[in-house]
């Protein structure tokens, strides 16, 4: 049952991603409507799938790489839908939907069976710590899309290439504003995720901070986003620098999420 729901959601996300990419080349109201129809259908199935998995295993479904990737995709989708409602920028889908689909795709190639949690991890901290981290990361994922859009639009304006996608992208100020808002929303979530993680680590392993690779890479990402917010408030840095840092920050987060498990021995490793 959960497998079927997952596969259906994956299929709808795939369709939505393909349609959204086609919107990069050609403007069409029909395509945009179709994209949202696919995305909503996928999201609905995905939501039911995540809930079903939660009910059947009795634990928040982020305990394997498969579950975590899938849940991450779900969070990004949620943030994307909220932002789409607020900003109404049709072409935004082209920069977030493929990311969502790739997250789902990576979930699909990982082993799917639910694994029982080790007793040290069975705690309400698990839900709090991971939910905060995932929602924060989701905001950063959409900020990453906004950052790419900003760089494209900025390059268009600077080089005076003013047709095609230029017409469909919003103003650079809007994109910069969106990027900043998403980072401002993601940053406190990531901060709280790190704090709750430290508290949990203290109660589970006996120390707040162990320089575990996952902790280190999260801290790097946190510092990058801290810089974005700090220099904006202090020196008014914005635009290109903020967009590039936001893209870098998300790449670091992706590495934290996927890479650390393969390259390092970590306590955050999925079973």
């Amino acid at each position, binding site marked *: 049952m959960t497998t079927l729901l997952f596969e259906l959601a994956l299929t709808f996300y795939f369709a939505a991603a393909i349609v959204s990419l086609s919107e990069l080349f050609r403007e069409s109201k029909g395509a945009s409507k179709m994209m949202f129809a696919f995305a909503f259908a996928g999201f609905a199935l995905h939501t039911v799938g995540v809930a079903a998995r939660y009910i059947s295993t009795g634990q928040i479904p982020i305990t394997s790489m498969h579950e975590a990737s899938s849940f991450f995709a779900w969070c990004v989708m949620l943030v994307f839908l909220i932002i789409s409602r607020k900003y109404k920028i049709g072409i935004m889908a082209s920069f977030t939907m493929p990311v969502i689909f790739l997250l789902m795709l990576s979930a699909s190639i990982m082993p799917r069976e639910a694994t029982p949690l080790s007793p040290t991890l069975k705690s309400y901290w698990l839900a709090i710590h991971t939910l905060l981290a995932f929602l924060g990361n989701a905001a950063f994922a959409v900020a990453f899309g906004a950052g790419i859009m900003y760089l494209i*639009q900025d390059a268009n*304006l*600077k080089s*005076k290439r*003013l*047709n095609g996608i*230029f017409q469909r*992208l*919003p*103003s*650079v*100020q*809007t994109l910069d*504003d969106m990027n900043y808002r998403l980072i401002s929303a993601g940053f406190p979530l990531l901060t709280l995720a790190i704090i709750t993680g430290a508290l949990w680590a203290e109660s589970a392993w006996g120390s707040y901070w162990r320089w575990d690779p996952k902790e280190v890479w999260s801290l790097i990402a946190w510092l990058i986003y801290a810089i974005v917010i700090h220099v904006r408030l202090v*020196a*008014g*840095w*914005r*635009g*290109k*620098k903020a967009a590039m840092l936001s893209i870098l920050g998300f790449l670091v987060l992706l590495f934290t999420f996927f890479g650390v498990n393969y390259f390092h021995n970590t306590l955050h490793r999925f079973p």
Partner: protein
Amino acid sequence: MKILVIGVNHKTADVEVREKLAFNGEKLSKGIAGLCALKNINEVVLLSTCNRVELYASVDNTETAINRIKVFLSEFHAIPLESFESSLYVLCGTEAVRHILRVASSLDSMVLGEPQILGQLKDAFSTALKEKSSGILLNKLMKKAISTAKRTRTETKIAENAVSISFAAVELAKKIFNDLSGMSVMLLGAGEMAELAARHLLNCGVKNVIVANRTYETGCRLAEEFCGKPVRFEEFKSEMLFSDIVICSTGAPAYVLNRDDMHTIMKERRQKPVFLIDISVPRNIDPDINKLENIYLYDVDDLQEVVNTNMTERQKEADLAGEIVEEEVESFMRWISSLKAVPAIISLRQKAEMIRSEEFSRLRNRLKSVSDEDMQAIEYMAAAITNKLIHAPMVALKDDCEDRQEMIALIKKLYALNGDHDDKK
């Protein structure tokens, strides 16, 4: 009755010819009256703009009407026919309808897709209505032209994207700032183009205008016009801290703003984006400034390039608009051909009515004893029978089919309708 277009436009005639043929001011109503007085010409609409003088008419005989109109134009404007005859174009029937619809949709304009022509056509039509020179045919045609123009405008992008430098600047501003309403614009030097761009920006909601001109008094006058603030030219750099859009046209021989200045200004502005428009030749703003972050510098060539690209886009859209026009031409021509059946329908109905009333009065004279009430019932029945009998042929006549002409002839023959009603019409 045929539709006829005679006229000159910017493609066929020089301005010297066009201005001689123009019907402006009082000449317009006099011209219409004169044309209506010509024999054989039933309806007239006269369109006279700076780019075209066109006369739309419905006439009985095209050949004679064309000659009469040509002679009239020559006499009315007191210019020899030879001086403009070669510039005139004459179109009849479907060609004429297509031309009028294309003119209204701005497909025949000098600037493709420009919106003024529709207004001018509407004015021409309302003048014709006032002078009562337009009738059933041209009324319908003018309404068709107006609705076609609206359709092309909404269904294609022919009128989208700026095709003037000042509008292009506004469009660009919208891609830099998310909301123009809180923005401030500074005019650095007062030129016609700068003024125009400022006016467009104000229309888009820009609130504050700062004018810095070398001659302070001129600057004051301009600032007053925009309800803005004049500043001394020497102070413009400090005012740039508060200006999001700067339109520069000082005519200075060298750069008035260099990269270092701008770097400092941006620091103090805390990197808030700036849109610099340099329409002065030679340029007044160091082009290197475009390399600084959060600054977008456009010179007059860049804007011209934007305009050219947009023109090409419009050209593409014009093909789509042309297809819409073709559809509408076809629908209008169908309506015209349905008109051909009107005389036959009228005479058929008249004939039926005549028979009915004749037979009824004969009957009434014979049946003296019948009560009024019964008489009414009989009259009602007679009407019902005639109506039902002619209903089917009437529907067939109104029906839009290819062999309508044969149908009309056939029905005329079957019901022995002689053509005298046609002549009355």
